[in-house]
């Protein structure tokens, strides 16, 4: 082999060198999917040149791609995205914000409560952040500014409520977590339910504290701001709740009752959203085309990151990178707690720069097996990381929720339509500062889950069998990291992640 002279030099350090190489490749600014794959392939060729493995090793690639194609769980990604995009244009969020805002408005902090409530409701219907942030930024923000809400509080509460879509089922984060950790999506959803609700409550608590101690930051709306009153308002409020509750039943209800798999739940939700838009006469050709186009592009880049991460992962395990990571993480002081704290800090810091897709596809497969060997339940671990990664949407300056809010918040001075007064714009700095209290709440939530693990309800039934099966595979892989074994582990994995009621 031509490159064997390199063996004494780097042979023992291939994994760390490859990892550093990955960081450089990713920071190059070239699309992540291809940088990941190129890094994997470059080190595969290096490894082949040094005689670490044979060219046959790369024959496993098409099978891996095929495994991704045939993955039923990932099918939920386009379904929920499509559903979110259709819902966004169906006017459901607008109706909710308008009515619930009027209902709660006259209490101190009421509009902010309405935003959180509607944010949680939208989060439970779909898994897309942009939709809620944009509707709330367009509808609630101008009203909050008109009546003198603190700008930081107003923008922070909107951005944070939008990110609830990431943790309250049916969220895309949880689907990908379940897929990467080899657990069922349904269990992951069940585990995330209570943390999602606690988080919502903590947002409400924060707003209540602000409203109590600094009333001028979250004033009550004057009653004239209502266009509806009395029983009319009450009936209208109940009516607007029907569509989201119907969708929540269609998606979450059917999943939790075991009638549908999460993938089918997503499909039914998407169909339901189409029906809803049709009933509101908002469905037209260009709307569907835009939704289809955006969904296709999003699916394409997400799945290609997964393809790239799979190429990287295959080679990284080939150079014993998994053992290196395991050694690194298990040698941390403090045992399990030390591991959890280190992993959470790592994710929190990386979330400043990376999307959750990148974190989930690159890092989760590396830390997941280590967590499992330490005896940590992977559902619990997945929900914990999910709450942590939710902050990646709120981190200044790259958080997407902030970015979406910026795009719809007034950037120049404007004249308020109702009062006719000249209003100051929302500065980017205000948006950034506004997010910080909510990032802190998120950190508190992560700490709470670690301190009180029972917050995440974990069902013990099938989980145990899965983990047993996987440990066996791990051993095999260590002994003989050939392409063939990797394939069989891939298949095993698939079988164990099949949903109940799937293929029979």
């Amino acid at each position, binding site marked *: 082999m031509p490159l064997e002279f390199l063996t004494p030099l780097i042979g023992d350090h291939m994994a760390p060198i490859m990892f550093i190489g990955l960081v450089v*490749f990713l*920071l*190059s*600014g*070239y*699309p*992540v999917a*291809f940088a990941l794959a*190129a890094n994997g*392939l470059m080190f595969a060729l290096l490894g082949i040149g040094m005689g670490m493995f044979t060219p046959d090793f*790369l024959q496993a*690639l*098409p099978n891996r*791609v*095929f495994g991704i*194609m*045939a993955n*039923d769980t*990932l*099918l939920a990604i*386009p379904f929920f995205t*499509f559903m*979110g*995009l259709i819902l966004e*244009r169906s*006017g459901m969020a607008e109706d909710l914000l308008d009515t619930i805002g009027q209902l709660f408005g006259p209490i101190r902090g009421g509009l902010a409560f309405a935003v959180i409530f509607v944010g949680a409701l939208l989060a439970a219907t779909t898994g*897309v952040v942009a*939709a809620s*942030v*944009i509707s709330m930024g*367009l509808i609630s923000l101008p009203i909050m500014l008109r009546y003198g809400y603190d700008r930081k509080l107003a923008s922070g509460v909107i951005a944070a409520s939008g990110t609830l879509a990431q943790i309250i089922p049916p969220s*895309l984060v949880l689907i990908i977590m379940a897929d990467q950790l080899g657990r069922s999506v349904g269990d992951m959803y069940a585990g995330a339910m209570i943390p999602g609700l606690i988080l919502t409550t903590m947002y409400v608590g924060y707003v209540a504290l602000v409203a109590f101690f600094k009333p001028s930051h979250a004033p009550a709306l004057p009653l004239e701001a209502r266009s509806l009153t009395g029983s009319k308002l009450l009936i209208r409020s109940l009516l607007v709740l029907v569509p989201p509750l119907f969708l929540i039943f269609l998606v979450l209800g059917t999943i939790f009752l075991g*009638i*549908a798999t999460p993938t*089918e739940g997503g*499909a039914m939700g*998407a169909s339901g959203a*189409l029906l809803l838009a049709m009933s509101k006469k908002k469905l037209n050709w260009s709307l569907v085309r*835009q939704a*289809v*186009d*955006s*969904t*296709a*592009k999003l*699916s*394409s*880049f997400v799945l*290609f*990151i997964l393809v790239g991460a799979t*190429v990287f992962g295959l080679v990284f395990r080939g150079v014993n990178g998994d053992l290196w990571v395991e050694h690194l993480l298990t040698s941390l002081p403090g045992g399990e707690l030390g591991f959890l704290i280190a992993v959470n800090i790592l994710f929190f810091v990386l979330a400043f720069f990376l*999307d959750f*897709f*990148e974190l989930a596809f690159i890092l989760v497969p590396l830390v997941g097996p280590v967590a499992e060997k330490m005896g940590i339940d992977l559902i619990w671990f997945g929900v914990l990381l999910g709450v942590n990664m939710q902050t990646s949407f709120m981190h200044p300056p790259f958080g*997407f929720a902030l*970015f*979406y809010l910026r795009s*719809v918040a007034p950037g120049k001075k404007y004249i308020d339509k109702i009062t006719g007064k000249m209003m100051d714009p929302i500065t980017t700095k205000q948006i950034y500062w506004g997010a910080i209290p909510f990032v802190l709440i998120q950190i508190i939530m992560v700490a709470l889950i670690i301190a009180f693990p029972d917050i995440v309800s974990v069902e013990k039934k099938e989980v145990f069998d899965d983990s047993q099966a996987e440990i066996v595979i791990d051993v095999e892989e260590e002994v003989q990291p050939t392409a063939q074994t990797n394939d069989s582990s891939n298949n095993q994995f698939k079988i164990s992640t099949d949903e109940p009621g*799937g*293929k029979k």
Partner: protein
Amino acid sequence: MHALLSFSRLIDAINTKIGKGAAWLILAAVLVSTINALTRYGFSMSSNAWLELQWYLFAGTFLLCAPWTLKCNEHIRIDVVTGRYSPRVHAWIDIIGGLLFLIPMCLVILWSAVPFAWDSIASMENSSNAGGLIVWPAKLLIPVAFTLLLLQGASEVIKRFAFLQGLIDGKEFEKGGGHGATPDAVEVAEATTGNK
């Protein structure tokens, strides 16, 4: 260079057509999956062929839309370090990345995927699930998609060179619709406010 540019335009046009067409498979997948769920629990009927069709459709979408997504410059990048550099530097990054990352990746995958698909076609491979679909068209998708992606990669490199020579406007390969976990916020916002 002009010949190369017309080649690049041709690839762009083909991949845009394929991508926009394949995107509709998403809607088909939604409907197929909904019907699968309803018939199984409504009438206790289930068919492996229909279950497999869901992922066939989705695999078709994400594989065949990848070149178009590349053309629209919507594959996620990490631009923390390189974000503030000039368009010329970005063009160079894309040239080097295209030549060193994307094109070699496509070639290696094609090298292994062509025999993979060929074996399947030669044996007229069927699904291992009873009553499932034929498998070889799905396996054939892999080399087809990576060939298209390879061509699109070449087209992108050509366009960047043309830009550096001042032959085309840099706007041509700017992000077609934003970056990130969800569609472009501004575009959506405009559509939403437009409706009002």
